[in-house]
């Protein structure tokens, strides 16, 4: 398990970076989504993968009576998933709107904010 996870994570990272290098926004967005999942899996691995019981304390005890799984990475991942999901939803809408308005999802042709071939300011007066 400990070796399988890093291998999966690195495949995810490779795929994400490949997709993000594309010039089509929809592919970049898929890359960003996979990037987020790769990071979540690496947080999970960083928290040490153990095949132990969940961190539940019996009623009569004050501390757990067995070694327990680490709950913190799961809390962190849950936070990160919520955030990256909302960002992904926003980005999808943004990409769709800009495709509607600008008629393209090719980043090379999206030059509205930085137009090419602008006139120079006056050189003297």
């Amino acid at each position: 398990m400990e070796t399988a996870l890093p291998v999966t994570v690195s495949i995810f990272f490779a795929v994400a970076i490949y997709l993000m290098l594309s010039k089509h926004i929809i592919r970049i967005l898929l890359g960003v989504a996979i990037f987020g999942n790769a990071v979540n899996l690496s947080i999970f691995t960083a928290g040490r993968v153990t095949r132990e019981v969940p961190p539940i304390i019996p009623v009569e005890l004050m501390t757990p009576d067995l070694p327990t799984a680490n709950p913190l990475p799961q809390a962190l991942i849950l936070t990160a998933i919520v955030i990256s999901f909302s960002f992904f939803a926003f980005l999808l809408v943004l990409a769709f709107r800009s495709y509607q308005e600008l008629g393209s999802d090719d980043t090379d042709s999206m030059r509205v904010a930085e137009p090419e071939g602008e006139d120079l300011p006056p050189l003297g007066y």
Partner: protein
Amino acid sequence: MAVDPGKTVDMARAMVMEPVAAADWLVVAPVVIPLVFGAVILMLRHETKLHAWTAIAALAATLAANIGLLARVVENGPLVMTMGRWLPPFGISFAADALGASLALVATLVALVCAVYSISDIGAIGRRYGFYPFMLLMMAGVGGAFLTGDVFNLYVWFEVFLISSFGLLVLGSEHRQLDGATKYAILNLVATTLFLTATAFLYGIFGTLNMADIARKVDGLRDTAPLMTLGVMYLLAFGMKAAAFPVNFWLPASYHTPRIVTAALFGGILTKVGVYALLRTLVMLFPPELELLSGLIAWVAGLTMVIGIMGALAQTDLRRALGFVVISGVGVMMAGLALGTGEGLSGTIFYAFHSMIVMAALYLLAGVMNGVGGSYSMRTLSGLYSAHPMLAAFALLLMLAAAGLPPASGLWPKVMLVRASLDAGYPWLAFAILATGLLTTLALGRIFILTIWRPRAQESLAAPVSPRLGYAVLGALSLPIVLMGLYPDPFIRVAQLAAGGLLDAAPYIGAVYPEGAGQ
């Protein structure tokens, strides 16, 4: 480990037992006040007349809380509040030291002035679409990022202000806004995800995300853990946030597209949060790694300032030129980070105060110029001096400040940084800072000559807007600028205190871990 069921646990060692003193709530006030009022304005979304005044009142209250917080921190050292009663490292702590509190104070001041200017800039539609809630939630995120004591929470606060800034950026959904927002959103999201990756490794190595706890444990792990990798990842992630040279291209693509108030907020505040995060992670957590990286950071700093300002020289549009000036300012701040000495860092922190105020003021100045001249382009703006001499005076003062000439605020931090670079044996970095000052004078002087001195070329078609509110706002921002230039002592003292707190983290750790609790 099996535990004897009959064994009692000393809760006093694991939990915060005494109630929080009333004055300690100051630590969370800069986050809670904008958050609450942002929600209130959302509920009042049909009452657009109330929005601006509610936001101004909320930001004024936040500013008061920030002043109180900074006064307490300067007097008594770092102030800490731990959430959920568990002592650190299990409970999440909010920790205000001089660095976080002073930057939060300046950021709130800038936001307050921008909120006042927005009365004229944001119309009923912008209010209806939620300009003010976005602005307050962004300030909550910025305040949280400056004051949190936990790396994962730093990530969360980054995301909070990032998503609000997306909202502000697309408000109006013009074509160039959609284009700019797409680039801004994707590249910033990649940067924060990179930050999260680094945080995953940080957690894997230290088993904790509390900054004080990491600073305490880092020396014991130096021989075995890949700390250099972590340092480089944080440098890349936060460098991208701060728009440092090789990863700065998202900033000029997007900062000129939104309403001018939004651009002023972004240009003033957001890049400095990246610089703050760099200072916090590299200087406080990984100082030996920073020393090894200092050559690289010095190159990044030098190239950022020189290439940034050369970009400004090439622009025709006022706002786009200002975007490049923001980048060059980030380079100056990174110079102090590269030196890593007390004087260099206090120069960086002082420059951050100055840059927040001056960049916001320059964007607002561009807004006023557009109001009276009907354009942001240097081709059509002209002859402002004869019609609006006050505007010319403000422009001159702000340009002197940005270029680092007396009597305005840019002089002293640049003097500190130049002296620190010479002391630390980086004469070329000192030269780069001075050359950047010259190039800034050229770039801004060119704007000044074309828009203000040049005789009026043609009558503008747009009906001019009265600049009275703009003058009030620029006057309010000029006050601290001139004060920093003529009477820099208190600012330098705070900056030195903040730099000292970064270099010697013992008081910070001591505040988070009172009397060895939670060991």
